[in-house]
């Protein structure tokens, strides 16, 4: 059961990593690339937190803290891109 979940998490991470590179190389819109690679980073990070770090069954406080760190950085990077494009 645990092994299956870990294998699934690994396959998800590999797929998202390949999708990240493909998006950066193939998509024509810079905005779309930035948004997509940041979203994929957040999703990959969440998989690592829940399945590899094993916090799926840990107290919600710790999952929340790590998710806040992850989304905080992704949102900051996204905001910086958006502000630069608007100014």
């Amino acid at each position: 059961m645990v092994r299956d979940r870990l294998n699934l998490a690994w396959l998800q991470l590999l797929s998202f990593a390949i999708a990240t590179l493909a998006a950066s190389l193939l998509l024509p819109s810079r905005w779309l690339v930035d948004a997509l690679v940041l979203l994929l980073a957040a999703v990959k990070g969440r998989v690592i937190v829940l399945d590899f770090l094993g916090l799926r069954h840990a107290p919600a406080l710790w999952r929340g803290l790590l998710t806040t760190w992850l989304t905080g950085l992704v949102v900051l990077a996204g905001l910086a891109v958006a502000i630069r494009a608007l100014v």
Partner: protein
Amino acid sequence: MSATVGEEELERWGVLDGLPGDPMMWVLIFSELVAFGLLLGAFVVARAVHPAVFTAGQAMLDSRLAAANTIVLVTSGWAAARGAAAARNPAPIVARRWIAVAMLLGVAFIAIKLTEYGGEIAAGAGLETSAFFTLYFLLTGFHLMHVLLGIMVLAIVGRSATANGVETGTAFWHMVDLVWIVMFPILYLVR
């Protein structure tokens, strides 16, 4: 009396007791995440202030090698997680094998990163080339030191392959993995 002392020993970490591995490792992990978070935040803000310098610097990076390193590191994280699962079973011999795979992939990550550094330095990039490269080498160098430290931690916990030891060591390794997952798009891909 001794039973009371034993109970106190067990309860002394409070809320940290719900985390896998040694609670002291989590104190280190949260400290490291704060440090990396501040550095990455500084990078994002500096790029917003000097967009042209950062775009020129980013164009000199090899995002394909970095993407290959992402695949190497997540696979290493998977091997480490399988090692921790085996150690909990307990199957120490299987756990050691998975930990060895994780360590080898960690060495591969370092080799790829050094190859990438070689190309960048040959192209004229250095610590003082621009604000981009100062922050780039600082961030990736700091991360690379953690990969090296993580390999040493895995080597230590892999020797005994106890459940708690392997959970503690692999938690550090997954933190290194998590940081790279966020660092890769911010440094290499987002313009």
